[in-house]
């Protein structure tokens, strides 16, 4: 190893070992950010292979045609004979009914089938047998939501049926996306909700008997094309505008099935950027704190002949090494936890398998982690390198700033606020960093609240009382994300307060020698953190709503209840005060005489 590299490695490694707790905090921040980023990146396309497996197992159609009415029937049936179509099944009658089971009342689409296996779209049974007279087969995601299995009993429009089997299909998007593309809106009367409609197969006779004047039958025709890849073009050419009804390609159905994971991805991507920003703040504070403590070390390296460049490299090397380690751990954690989030749900056959971690993903995650470490370390490293050797050896504290307005204003305030404001004025960048931490965290939390408020406003809850798997999964991801954000913010608040405590040792001891009580000093240290977080928490409210609007696919955001917003702001203040109270109290209890003696 070249001597220069050896020196950098030795010094960086020894410092990492010496500062175990700081190293652990740095790694925690980096791993949280890189794990979230990895998850957001690797979830892309994970439902593709389960859909393909289901399509193969069910002899899935390339295009599904749904129609109602005599003229549409003629046009739709004419599609069977046009060139490029080399197979079909159906048309099958589809009725709309109300299913009751286990105290739930759910709208369903009931498709009538024969007993013989269909050449195209034969749903693949995962439980029980195919529907016999007096029996039904339930789509698996729908059965999961209801908690039903083969052998259970249900009623359709009041008539009792046995659940003969449970099956998956690739011709209809899985529950709750059944009506995502097909003609549910067309013939289905208003009393049948479409957002939580389930899929049921039964005999043709039963399906036809369920039709009413208000909800007449519609039909489904499954087509197999010579060139499955051309399904989109075929659907576009013969779809709405012609009389054939709705044509949906297998690619569109696959995309609808991916909705479950897509929704998670839409949440995780901005979430990972928020976590990344928080990690940037964490690393800036921690790295800045380490740098401040390394003034003497920098002086020593220069005193024995090290150049300013070498000093800067040594100081940056350890943070870059930690960033690389954090990125590796984040990639591994993201890769391992992705299957938990990328399970395609009950509607598709098989699991997603391990998501693929591409070179681009590795590059982006590592680049982000190293970028965070580089940006947050560069300025303090260069400052330490450029500082005079003598100043470094005497380890003189960085001179505080003077905020004249803040000092004058604070004179009119009670002692804790006076002390807190003056601490802010001494180190305004640290206050900005603390405020940024609160801003990012509360923005994330307000965006999550906006999501829930919007969900309530636009969907208003399903009459069936069933849980939407997409919403449930997104809510889980949001919960994990908010825990990650709060965790990172808590680490930041503690670290920033501790940096303030260390930096304020002398003024705090001096204030005590002039008559300030330990309680006033510790309250002042806490106030230095709480004061900047007030405007940050208030500003985060519009930013959080704006963030939701930006990533919400054009859905108009609904404002969270004012009581929640007040609770968020007050809760943030209380949390910051509580998190900072312990380090502040420890700092304020240090004997003033000892500090003044040491700093004399």
């Amino acid at each position, binding site marked *: 190893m070249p001597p220069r590299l050896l020196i950098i490695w030795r010094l960086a490694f020894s410092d990492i070992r010496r500062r175990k707790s700081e190293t652990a905090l740095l790694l925690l921040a980096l791993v949280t950010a890189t794990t979230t980023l990895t998850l957001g990146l690797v979830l892309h396309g994970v439902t593709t292979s389960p859909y393909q497996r289901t399509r193969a197992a069910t002899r899935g159609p390339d295009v599904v045609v749904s129609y109602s009415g005599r003229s549409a029937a003629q046009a739709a049936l004419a599609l069977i004979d046009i060139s490029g179509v080399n197979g079909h099944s159906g048309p099958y009658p589809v009725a709309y009914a109300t299913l009751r089971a286990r105290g739930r009342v759910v709208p369903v689409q009931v498709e009538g089938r024969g007993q013989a296996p269909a050449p195209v779209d034969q749903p693949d049974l995962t439980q029980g047998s195919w529907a016999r007279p007096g029996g039904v087969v339930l789509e698996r995601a729908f059965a999961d939501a209801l908690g039903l299995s083969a052998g259970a009993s249900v009623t359709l429009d009041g008539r009792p049926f046995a659940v003969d089997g449970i099956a998956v299909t690739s011709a209809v998007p899985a529950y709750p996306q059944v009506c995502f593309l097909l003609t549910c809106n067309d013939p289905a009367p208003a009393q049948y909700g479409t957002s939580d409609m389930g899929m049921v197969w039964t005999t043709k006779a039963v399906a036809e008997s369920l039709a009413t004047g208000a909800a007449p039958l519609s039909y489904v025709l499954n087509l197999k094309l010579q060139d499955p890849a051309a399904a989109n073009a075929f659907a576009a050419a013969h779809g709405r505008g012609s009389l054939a009804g709705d044509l949906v390609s297998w690619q569109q159905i696959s995309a609808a099935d991916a909705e479950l994971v897509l929704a998670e991805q839409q949440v995780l991507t901005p979430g990972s950027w928020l976590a990344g920003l928080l990690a940037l703040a964490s690393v800036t504070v921690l790295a800045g704190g380490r740098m401040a403590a390394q003034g003497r070390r920098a002086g020593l390296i220069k005193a024995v002949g090290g150049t300013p460049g070498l000093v800067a490299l040594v100081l940056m090397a350890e943070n870059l090494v930690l960033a690389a380690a954090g990125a590796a751990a984040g990639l591994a954690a993201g890769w391992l936890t992705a299957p938990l989030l990328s399970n395609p749900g009950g509607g598709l056959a098989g699991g997603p398998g391990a998501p693929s971690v591409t070179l681009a993903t590795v590059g982006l995650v590592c680049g982000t982690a190293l970028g965070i470490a580089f940006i947050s370390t560069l300025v303090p490293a260069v400052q330490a390198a450029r500082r005079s050797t003598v100043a470094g050896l005497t380890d003189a504290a960085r001179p505080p700033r003077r905020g004249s307005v803040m000092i004058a204003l604070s004179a009119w305030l009670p002692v804790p606020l006076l002390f807190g404001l003056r601490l802010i004025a001494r180190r305004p960048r640290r206050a900005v960093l603390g405020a940024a931490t609160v801003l990012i965290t509360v923005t994330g939390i307000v965006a999550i609240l906006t999501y829930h408020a919007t969900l309530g406003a636009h969907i208003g809850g399903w009459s069936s009382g069933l849980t939407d798997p997409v919403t449930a999964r997104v809510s889980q991801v949001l919960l994990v994300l908010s825990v990650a954000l709060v965790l990172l913010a808590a680490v930041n608040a503690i670290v920033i307060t501790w940096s303030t405590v260390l930096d304020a040792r002398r003024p705090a001891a001096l204030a005590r020698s002039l008559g300030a*009580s330990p309680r006033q000093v510790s309250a002042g240290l806490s106030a230095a953190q709480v004061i900047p977080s007030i405007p940050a928490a208030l500003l985060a409210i519009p930013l959080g709503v704006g963030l939701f609007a930006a990533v919400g696919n054009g859905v108009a955001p609904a404002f969270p209840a004012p009581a929640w917003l007040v609770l968020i702001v007050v809760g943030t203040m209380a949390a910051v005060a509580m998190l900072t109270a312990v380090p502040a109290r420890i700092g304020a209890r240090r004997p003033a005489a000892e500090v003044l003696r040491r*700093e004399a």
Partner: protein
Amino acid sequence: MTDASMVCARGLRKEYGKDAALVRAVDNVDLDVTAGETVAVMGPSGCGKSTLLHLLGGLDRPSAGRLWLAGQRIDEMSERGLAALRRDAVGFVFQAFHLMDELTSAENIELPALLAGRSPRAARRRALELLDQVGLADRARHLPSELSGGQRQRVAIARALTNEPLVVLADEPTGNLDSEATLDVLRLLENLHVAGQTVVIVTHDSRIAATADRLISMRDGAFVDDTRLTGGTSGQLGFVTDLEG
């Protein structure tokens, strides 16, 4: 303890460490300082002078013994009580000045008044008055970094007087100063003495000690000599000034 005692200590002890590493920084000290008296404490470095001063001002707690300030027992006081005592009854002057770097002279001086809950206007008025008294009226808006060592110590003395304390405790007030600045500080201390201010000064400087009413010598944490000095203070200071001249 006598009725006239401003500061009184009985069996005062301060220990650090334990067993073989036990150090008695202050060892069984008895002390009475009457109101208006100036007491100088001298001794070699590390003999416990500064620790004694910190104990007298309630900045540190004794390991044993009793301590009164203006008749009030302070060794058993709560931290809050000690803070109030430091705010209202004690003024500290440190060797290293210990001024807030980011505050101007006036802002440093008014700080104890603000801590005591005085209005900012009253605090500023008092600060300017004190700056005038220490001869720095034209330095009110200067930061410590823009002042000489002597000027910084004069600001520190002014700050110690802000709340009209019962006793001023000065720890090596000229330790970091050149001869000229030392003389300035000596003059200020003399003015305090003349004004009847109770002062306890820890010093290495025999010229300062010569201005006191009493000179106490310390060694290994204990008092080894307590001498009442005679002669007028101004005479002593004049003597010092002559020496410098």
